[in-house]
């Protein structure tokens, strides 16, 4: 037993001794693994960070995610109802909120009751004893996010003044708060807003306290329960974006694994004499394989650990909010993360190890099949390589078949991802074959020019070199393709997202009055205002089409509004038929689900019978889980006379928004849910998206860097092996500078061919992401935008990377002493 162990130790030691002679190879292997893991874990960390930012904004004091109790008329009500409900067993917490003007800027002042505040309503609930005491005791506290403090032009400790002359307690920064919100104790809010004993609404905790009396028994019909809303469109759009980023993480990981695969392939090749010697000394193939596996797992473990750290570091560096990321990583104070983190680490490391083993699998298989004697002859390996290349071609065809099957017959998200994976794999497998064919054609073409033997040689030699470089070239292909794909995806997302936000949330202020009468009153009041305000009434109704409940929305009669409506497809004269009241636009989701296209007719059930509508076009309605039809607003009211006409969308010059919102709220007692300032929503959403976009660009650079390193190491390894090919040319009189130039041209040609092949592949990847993966996950499709300048830029970067990778070994050749070249002939095989 101990003899066996000792032998294992001895084998392992011999195996490891290889790295001492080839530190660069070890570095490639480790760097490949580290970068693969880092890219993957970094993307994960970024995703989480961005999600948290959204959650922070969405969950803040309920947003729409928490159930609330509100007065029937939306006005403030007595806090006695809060007490009555608590005493009856209800887990409710009071909130008093109103828009206030501070230094000319409109912010939301929220009074909370920290002891009863449900924990799911935001990080402000996580006050510890000392903080709570400061919050509840004189001089009290006004909690604010740093960005809000900056935008108000105030400093911590200052007391903000309200327009009614009241001042708030000293400001204190609370990083977890959403922007544009000031949080005080409810008692302070009641005093500052001069609403003693009044509350705007009650938050209902998700977790009940226990049995409770029915609502009507406690408060009669004075309060109504507003159920929490499901995800908003914005959140769905974000989810989709993050799904795509996750896909990017996977792709980057795959690129990293290719590098690992190429590095491992090379080390296997170089250690063949060592393997042979060990086998001849009596080491069984099983022991050898086992020890190789031990070595690999150990390397993967080290690299995986460093990679995880590097990934987090990268995420932290790339995000402006470094502190927040670090807090998420290292502190135990945020519940949920604490339990997630070990699992995350284990998952990340396991992924690295599985990846490393998968990358080494071909090497193991080859080793197993190699006979002891054959192992000594490099040609045997080459032959195997040749045969393997042929098999690769066949395999590529097979994998392409699977990809096509995934596209045609798969409908799940899994099939979408499988399509992505098989597409990339097939392309990588086919690359050497494709390059070989291209070179063969070129060689034939060159053979016509008999005066150019060097040119002919260059093509022939490139073909021979292909097998050695193929793995590195595959890595380059995948890196460029993934870059193209992800840039296209991100660019398309951004273009779509920004236009969609601008178009669909075109109005600056949205409000929902308590009644039709109040809406009319508000409209009159708005017309008397000095500002230029465009009032777009919004009417909605619910109906059933093809067995499913859908939303009917009325289009406002406003040229600008109609011009910017995000139509994806339209029949001729679409808007005229809409105005006539017998046509409708259908949302993309509904058009997909019900198979509706322009020109089709449908019958919509209304309060007064059936309403036949012709489909005049399809519009983007990203993130809306419900199907929607858009019809003329007046026609909608005619067919649904009972539909409430309480919604108004207002367009106004942006600087006037906050004042108008505050005036509207104070004049008509509109609650937070009844009026929304979209400019803030838009700005915040764009900011978070831009952060993620910047990060993606940086990630792209990382991926290309990884591919360049792979190319460099492959070329370095090949440099020595290629001397027997180069020495005869040198002996025939080709100067070293000329030889170097030819070598460089060859490498660059291979790289350029690869990069060019990567462009269509990348576009295909981008298309898969937005048109397959996204549609299967969310039911809507982002239009694919191709950005040619971006592609050129990427190609240029890839070529620069290839140039740098090729230059290092060539510099060696350039300065090679003639003696070394002559020695090639001395020990000719």
């Amino acid at each position, binding site marked *: 037993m101990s003899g066996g162990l000792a032998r294992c130790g001895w084998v392992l030691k011999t195996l490891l001794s290889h790295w001492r002679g080839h530190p660069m190879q070890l570095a490639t292997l480790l760097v490949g693994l580290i970068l693969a893991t880092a890219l993957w874990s970094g993307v994960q960390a970024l995703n989480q960070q961005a999600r948290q930012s959204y959650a922070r904004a969405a969950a803040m004091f309920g947003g729409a995610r928490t159930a609330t109790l509100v007065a029937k008329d939306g006005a403030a009500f007595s806090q006695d109802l809060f007490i009555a409900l608590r005493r009856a067993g209800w887990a409710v917490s009071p909130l008093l909120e109103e828009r206030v003007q501070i230094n000319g800027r409109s912010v939301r002042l929220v009074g909370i009751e920290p*002891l009863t505040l449900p924990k799911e309503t935001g990080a402000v609930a996580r006050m510890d*004893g000392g903080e709570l005491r400061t919050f509840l005791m004189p001089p009290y506290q006004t909690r604010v996010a740093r960005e809000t403090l900056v935008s108000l032009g105030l400093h911590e400790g200052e007391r903000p003044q309200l327009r009614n002359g009241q001042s708030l307690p000293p400001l204190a920064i609370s990083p977890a708060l959403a922007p544009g919100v000031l949080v005080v*104790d409810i008692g302070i809010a009641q005093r500052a807003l001069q609403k003693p004993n009044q509350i705007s609404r009650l938050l209902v905790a998700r977790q009940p306290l226990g049995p409770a009396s029915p609502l009507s028994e406690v408060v009669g019909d004075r309060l109504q329960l507003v159920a929490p809303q499901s995800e908003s469109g914005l959140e769905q759009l974000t989810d989709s974006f993050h799904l795509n980023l996750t896909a990017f993480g996977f792709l980057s990981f795959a690129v990293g694994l290719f590098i690992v695969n190429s590095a491992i392939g090379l080390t296997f090749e170089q250690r063949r004499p060592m393997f042979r010697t060990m086998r001849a000394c009596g080491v069984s193939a099983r022991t050898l394989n086992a020890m190789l596996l031990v070595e690999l797992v150990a390397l993967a473990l080290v690299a995986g650990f460093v990679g995880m750290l590097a990934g987090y570091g990268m995420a932290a560096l790339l995000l402006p909010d470094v502190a927040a990321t670090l807090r998420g990583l290292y502190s135990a104070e945020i519940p949920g993360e604490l339990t997630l983190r070990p699992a995350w680490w284990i998952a990340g490391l396991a992924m690295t190890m599985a990846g490393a083993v998968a990358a080494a699998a071909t090497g193991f298989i080859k080793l197993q099949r190699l006979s002891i004697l054959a192992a000594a002859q490099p040609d045997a390996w080459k032959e195997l390589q040749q045969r393997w290349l042929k098999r690769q071609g066949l395999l590529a065809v097979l994998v392409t078949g699977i990809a096509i099957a995934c596209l045609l017959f798969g409908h799940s998200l899994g099939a979408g991802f499988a399509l992505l994976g098989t597409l990339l794999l097939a392309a990588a497998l086919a690359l050497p074959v494709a390059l070989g064919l291209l070179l063969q054609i070129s060689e034939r073409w060159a053979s016509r020019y008999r005066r150019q033997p060097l040119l002919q040689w260059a093509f022939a030699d490139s073909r021979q070199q292909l097998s050695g470089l193929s793995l590195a070239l595959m890595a380059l292909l995948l890196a460029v393709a993934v870059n193209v794909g992800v840039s296209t995806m991100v660019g398309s997302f951004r273009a779509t997202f920004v236009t969609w936000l601008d178009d669909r949330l075109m109005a600056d202020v949205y409000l929902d009055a308590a009644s039709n009468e109040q809406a009319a009153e508000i409209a009159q009041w708005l017309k008397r205002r000095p500002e230029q305000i465009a009032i777009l009434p919004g009417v909605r109704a619910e109906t059933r089409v093809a067995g499913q409940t859908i939303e009917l929305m009325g289009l406002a009669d406003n040229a600008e509004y109609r011009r910017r409506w995000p139509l994806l497809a339209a029949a001729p004269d679409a808007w005229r038929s809409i105005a006539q009241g017998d046509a409708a636009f259908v949302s993309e989701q509904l058009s997909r689900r019900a198979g509706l296209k322009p020109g089709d007719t449908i019958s919509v059930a209304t309060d007064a019978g059936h309403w036949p509508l012709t489909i005049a076009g399809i519009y983007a309605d990203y993130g809306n889980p419900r199907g929607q039809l858009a019809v003329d607003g007046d026609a909608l009211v005619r067919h649904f006379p009972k539909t409430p006409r309480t919604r108004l969308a207002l367009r106004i010059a942006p600087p006037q928004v906050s004042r108008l919102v505050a005036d509207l709220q104070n004049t008509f007692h509109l609650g937070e849910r009844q009026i929304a300032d979209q400019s803030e929503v838009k700005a915040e959403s764009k900011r978070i998206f831009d952060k993620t976009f910047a990060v993606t660009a940086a990630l792209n650079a990382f991926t290309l860097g990884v591919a360049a390193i792979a190319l460099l190491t492959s070329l370095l390894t090949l440099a020595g092996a290629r001397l027997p090919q180069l020495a005869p040319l040198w002996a025939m009189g080709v100067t070293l500078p000329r030889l170097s130039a030819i070598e460089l041209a060859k490498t660059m040609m291979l790289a350029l061919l690869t990069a060019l092949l990567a462009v269509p592949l990348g576009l295909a990847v981008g298309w898969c992401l937005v048109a397959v993966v996204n549609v299967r996950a969310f039911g809507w499709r982002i239009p694919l935008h191709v950005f040619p300048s971006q592609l050129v830029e990427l190609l240029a970067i890839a070529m620069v990377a290839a140039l740098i990778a090729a230059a290092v070994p060539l510099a060696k050749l350039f300065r090679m002493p003639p003696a070394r070249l002559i020695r090639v002939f001395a020990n000719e095989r």
Partner: protein
Amino acid sequence: MHRRAFVQGLAWLAAAGPARAQGFAGLGGEAEGYAPVVRGRALTFPADHGAHPQFRIEWWYVTANLRGEDGEAYGVQWTLFRQAMAPGSEGQGWGSRQLWMGHAAVTSARQHLFAERLARGGVGQAGVEAAPFHAFIDAWELRAPEGASAQTLAPLALKASSTDFRIDLRLDTTRPVVLQGEGGYSEKSTRGQASYYYSQPFFTAQGEIALAGRSVGVTGQAWLDREWSSQPLAPDQKGWDWMSLHLASGDKVMLFRLRQDDGADYRSGNWIDADGTAHALAASDIAMTPTAWTTIGTHVVPTSWRVAIASRGLTISIAPLNPQSWMGTSIPYWEGPVRIEGSHGGVGYLEATGY
């Protein structure tokens, strides 16, 4: 077990203020600005059944040892704490400086279910009225009917419920409340720390409890403790072991041991004859020795004891009904029903804090 994130580390507000880490839950903090506890002040009822906001801390504490119709033993705890965040005038409405905390628990040999409620004073979510007596927080309450006796503090209706348990008991007795210590002045150290302390150990209890959806009718005995102080612990006292014992003979015994940093402790107790006569026990007369410890998470708590009171010929062992009777509340502690064996039989409640 569901814990509300915001109370984690709350450590009962006083502990987080300037008096941080002064004894268990900050009870050893400076008393400056609060009303002092003085020897010789006569307690008056019903006024002293109500709240004393000028003192820093106060509690209404009921424990009950019950027997179910199913023959099983059960324990019930119902507690309301009041804590002032700062000395001074009480403040109006939300400006009140009073915080209230309710703890309730139901214990069987296999289950220990508990819940916590927190509330601000001043707005009616929690509070105590002296007459007719009514202590409440959210839907939990301890309420005497109109015209109930101020001397006996009986009868009382006790109610509490949570997502996984429900308590509905009626407590009754004809005996007057019993003053602890010297006429209600209960010394807690040799350096003057003290509290006002009286009890009603003679309650009979009857009603219904539910554990995890299973209801059971119960009868038994209950003990109410009333205590208020501004600095009940000396700064070096880190916790206490307290027990209330219903002996089979009808006698009632209250014992406590305050543990000091230096390893010494301050022992005190009261022997209440079956007829209600109270006899203070000298520290030298009381022996309290842990015999078994229970590990709950990171806490190691003495849950079995050997207790001797030489002058009364009492030598008993005390064992928990459920060693896992841990109150995982903002201030965590162990509190649960116990069985008594030895020279005397009976049941009781054990409380162990600061572990």
